[in-house]
């Protein structure tokens, strides 16, 4: 919503500072997004009094004006406008002044005659479209007076962010009401010049149908249109609106069209009541009927678009056809035009949810639909219509043909609510005196009847505040007008919550620390991905196909980030992410929420460590780095799972065989210089991690034996190790792989793997014989079970 500072000044009858207004509005709940000065760029323009006009010696269509610009010197101005006359005042741009269009005035010769400045048209000053001649100023201000001082041209447009609950702030009157409360001042509708002596007949109330000035007004769809005011004015002369009205509209960001159309827009911007004017000559019947659209009904709206209207939509129709989508936009055929002489003014109230539906169905959001959707004052139509009639009569002439009509099948009163003072204190934490509470409620336009004996107030809520229904709404209003900053901010006593931190959050934090400790940087990827496989969750209305599905794995997103780094010529990448993945397991109904799991994933590519001039750090990560990371990640995220080899890569499975993680080399769109990408992903087990128990440190010496074993390819190191552990007995403390060797004299299908076995007894120093025996058992078992011998 755009507010004009000057329009508000007219309501409050006092000068306002735009910045101050913005601050007050903000503290009342309506943020001002920006303040746009209007016509502040006319600062250099002054009043010029033309004292003499003579012909240009060398040009028939030019004349030379002698301009008094308030200085001693008279300026010669060469001028082509037809309406330059001695004794009149015009806007004068002296040499050096810059016009709103960016043109800077210089001293120059026109057909041999020097011109020292410029007399301006309204359009040249950014004031409307009139370019038929110079702007004849209606002012007595002395020559040389700045134009902005002589005329109330400058204004400030305050762009207000109005929350959906405050339709009243979509009109200047509502904003003025708030400001009046803030300033402790009064406000009233500004008078309309030329309408002072008009005496508009009061409206005639009717139920479903009535007639005014020969036009039948009828409500056939009372759900969609519960109330319909109308008036007929005959003999109007369509033309431009007066200066003051155009300026107000312009400041509010609405283009001036013609006096009648401007009058309807003015009322909307002032009272938040959208209006519409029809050319009576084009209405068949003549009638205006609020009804549901007929099947297949079509209408060309004011924007020139032909639209099909669905049957749920309320339309305004004449005796034969729809002439407007109710509350959204009027029809082109019945539009008021230059030749219009008789008009019908519509001032109706439409049901918000129906308007919302209709404007969505039509794909057409307008100033009117925006307001009806948020709620217009059901009880203020008569005032709005009277205001509009006065404006039309004052600016376009004509006669009110008849008393206006007010069709209202289901009459009602604004609702009454009750406010208990104890409840107010319970919510706000501060006890406010009864009279203060009453004062705040009166400030927003409510009527209050106090019942001190039962400590409550009956509140008749004003019609322009459809958001005020329940007691809590009134409590908010009291707090708001009282000023939120008036409430203390001292921390009081409280009971701590009775819940622990969510286990999954705690577990995730631990995994995050652990993976960061492994040297990985945490990344965040968008959970939406371009494609989804079996069981993936699809979005109905994605932003674009790039974001059409919910991810089932974090890895594709991380791989894309690796590629993004490559595109920035960054080769060494190490990222991890902890996030949610989504899937619909087979067997789960689509009418249930999908399964969500928190996963941790990581990707590595490029150098294992930063390159150093001494020669270290030139090696790329390989699958063993991946395995190490994966084992660490599984230990962090799902400690009860174990890492296993499957299909030439690693997986993590729980004891009962459920797959909870995997690690492998990943495909990526890699430039030739990039390294391989390795990635892992593991599900997060939210159950609490028991603290590790410390074993007593050994006090006895260990004995080591190194065994180089000839291992056939079909036997894994893990199998060998398991056999060693079985056979060695309780004295074996540790088994390590020292190296692996292939080729040479070993022959195909065979490798030499060296194991180091560490033996220790907790209570004594082992004798060589004991260790020899254990070693012999190991070698015997390996030979018997796996046909593995020692390399000789």
């Amino acid at each position, binding site marked *: 919503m755009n507010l004009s500072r000057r329009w508000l000044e007219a309501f409050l009858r006092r000068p306002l500072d735009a910045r101050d207004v913005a601050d007050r509005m903000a*503290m*009342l*709940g309506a943020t001002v997004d*920006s303040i746009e000065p209007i016509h502040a760029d006319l600062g250099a323009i002054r009043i010029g009094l033309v004292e003499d006009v003579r012909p240009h010696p060398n040009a028939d269509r030019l004349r030379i004006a002698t301009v008094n610009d308030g200085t001693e010197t008279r300026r010669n101005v060469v001028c082509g406008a037809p309406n330059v006359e001695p004794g009149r005042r015009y806007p004068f741009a002296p040499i050096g002044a810059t016009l709103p269009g960016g043109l800077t005035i210089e001293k120059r010769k026109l057909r041999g005659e020097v011109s020292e400045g410029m007399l301006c048209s309204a359009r040249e000053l950014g004031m409307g479209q009139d370019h038929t001649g110079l702007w004849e100023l209606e002012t007595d201000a002395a020559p040389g007076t700045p134009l902005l001082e002589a005329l109330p041209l400058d204004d400030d447009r305050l762009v207000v962010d109005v929350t*959906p609950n405050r339709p009243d702030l979509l009109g200047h009157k509502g904003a003025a009401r708030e400001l009046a409360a803030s300033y402790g001042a009064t406000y009233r509708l500004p008078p309309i010049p030329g309408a002072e002596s008009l005496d508009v007949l009061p409206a005639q109330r009717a139920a479903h149908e009535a007639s005014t000035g020969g036009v039948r007004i009828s409500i056939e769809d009372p759900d969609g249109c519960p109330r319909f005011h109308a008036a007929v004015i005959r003999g109007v002369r369509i033309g431009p609106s007066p200066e003051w009205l155009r300026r107000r509209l312009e400041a509010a960001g609405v283009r001036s069209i013609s006096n009648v159309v401007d009058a309807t827009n003015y009322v909307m911007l002032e009272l938040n009541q959208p209006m519409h004017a029809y050319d009576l000559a084009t209405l068949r019947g003549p009638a205006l009927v609020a009804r549901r659209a007929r099947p297949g009904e079509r209408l060309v709206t004011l924007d020139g678009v032909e639209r099909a209207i669905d049957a749920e939509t309320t339309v305004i129709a004449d005796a034969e056809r729809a002439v407007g989508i109710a509350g959204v936009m009027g029809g082109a055929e019945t539009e008021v035009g230059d030749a219009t002489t008789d008009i019908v003014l519509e001032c109706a109230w439409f049901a918000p949810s129906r308007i*919302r*539906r209709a404007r969505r169905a039509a794909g057409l959001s307008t100033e009117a639909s925006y307001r009806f959707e948020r709620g217009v004052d059901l009880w203020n139509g008569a005032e709005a219509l009277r205001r509009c009639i006065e404006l039309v009569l004052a600016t376009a002439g004509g006669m009110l043909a008849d008393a206006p009509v007010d069709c209202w099948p289901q009459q009602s009163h604004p609702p009454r609510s009750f406010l208990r003072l104890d409840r107010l204190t*319970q*919510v*706000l934490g*501060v006890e406010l005196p009864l009279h203060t509470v009453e004062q705040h409620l009166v400030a927003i336009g409510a009527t209050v009847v106090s019942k001190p004996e039962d400590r409550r107030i009956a509140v008749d809520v004003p019609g322009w505040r459809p958001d005020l229904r329940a007691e*809590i709404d009134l*409590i*908010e209003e009291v*707090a*708001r007008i009282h000023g*939120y900053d008036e*409430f203390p*901010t001292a*921390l*009081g006593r*409280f*009971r*701590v*919550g*009775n*819940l*622990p*931190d969510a286990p999954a*959050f705690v577990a995730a934090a631990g995994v995050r*620390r652990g993976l960061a400790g492994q*040297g990985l*940087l*945490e*990344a*965040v*990827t*968008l*959970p*939406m991905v371009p494609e989804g496989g079996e069981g993936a*969750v699809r*979005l*109905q209305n994605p932003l674009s196909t790039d974001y059409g599905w919910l991810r089932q794995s974090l890895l594709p997103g*991380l791989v894309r*980030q690796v590629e*993004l*780094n490559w595109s*920035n010529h*960054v080769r060494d*990448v190490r*990222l991890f992410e902890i*996030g*949610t993945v989504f899937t619909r397991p087979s067997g789960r109904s*689509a*009418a249930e*929420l*999908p399964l*969500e799991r928190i996963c941790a994933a990581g990707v590595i590519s490029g150098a294992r460590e*930063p390159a150093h001039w001494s020669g*270290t750090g030139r090696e790329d990560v390989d699958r063993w780095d991946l395995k190490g990371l994966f084992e660490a990640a599984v230990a962090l995220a799902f400690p009860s799972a174990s890492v296993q080899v499957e299909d030439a890569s690693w997986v993590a499975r729980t004891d009962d065989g459920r797959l909870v993680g995997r690690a492998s080399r990943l495909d990526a769109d890699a430039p030739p210089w990039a390294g391989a990408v390795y990635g892992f992903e593991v599900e997060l087990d939210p159950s609490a991690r028991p603290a590790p128990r410390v074993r007593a440190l050994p006090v006895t010496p260990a004995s080591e034996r190194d065994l180089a074993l000839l291992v056939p390819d079909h036997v894994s190191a893990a199998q060998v190790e398991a056999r060693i552990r079985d056979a060695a007995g309780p004295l074996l403390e540790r088994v390590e792989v020292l190296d692996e060797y292939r080729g040479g004299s070993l022959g195909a299908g065979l490798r030499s793997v060296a194991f180091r076995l560490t033996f220790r007894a907790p209570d004594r120093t082992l004798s060589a014989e004991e260790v020899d025996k254990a070693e012999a058992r190991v070698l015997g078992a390996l030979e018997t079970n796996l046909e593995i011998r020692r390399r000789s």
Partner: protein
Amino acid sequence: MTDATGYPVLDELLTRLHRIDTLDAPGLEAEHIAVLGRKSGALTGAMKTLATLPPDERRAFGAAVNRVKARFEAAIADRRAALERSAKAQERTAADLTMPARRRWTGGEHPVTRVIDEICGIFRELGFAVAIGPEVETEWYNFLALNFPPDHPAMDQHDTLYVDAPPVEGERGGRQLLRTHTSPVQMRTLLTSPPPVRVVIPGMVYRNDPYDPSHAPAFAQIEGLAVDEGITFVDLKATLAHWARRFFAADTRVRFRPSYFPFTEPSAEMDVSCRLCGGGGCPACKGTGWMEVLGCGMVHPAVITNAGLDAERYTGFAFGMGPARMAMLRYGVTDIRQLYEGDMRFLEQVT
């Protein structure tokens, strides 16, 4: 090397030790062997002659040899230490210590994570715990239970992404959607846990917003909820003002402006004095001196009722804020998309 009596001459030994000027050369070790070597060391030899001496001379001779031996051992240790010192000193001057160090890759947490942890940490001091919940929700949890009037313009502020699936049946069902705020977790918490409830709820939320420098279709949010008997608007203000002073700076000023959220009433926006200009007004705060950091309010009685609690007995407050925006403010990030691109050059600066 021996004097007339056949003893090694100590002074000469010491002189020779001093001529040895480097640790690497065999000199010091050779000297050690020459004097004290087990087979042919001069002093060892001298000691061997002890047995050949008359008994009355043995004591004095033995004592003398031992003295020389001790002196020599001390001298050789001194010399070794001195040479080591000078070697080190030489090393110090020889190497160009301005050459770059050998570094390791370091890891770290995402800036938004760090902000979330810090925010949650402050609220933990105030008796809150962390709660989380599902990101795909039903219409009931995301909107209806939170007092969003069905088909109301308030919904327009939550441009919602819907899941392509049939609605969930039942009272708490409705269309499946990506939560537009973490408030559904408020409802889930209230439904399962009796007051006093004090939780902060971090998590991803989703809006059908175009992906541009200031919007992302998915972003982190933190909400908070406190419900108990006797919680008032003053508690709301006090708690959040305390948080702001801890999170930003002790001298941070706050102000509360009325606002509108369907699930709270009274509703407010909390501003803090601008972090850049301190309140004087600058482009970052649009000249107002204030920066909007969170929305908050007293939990709407309808929400309390929807959670199955007695709204006449229990009151509460709730708030919500965007840690991504705070991370941007804190680290000077101007394009929100940088937070989601995994650019190593970016992450290495901010983690």
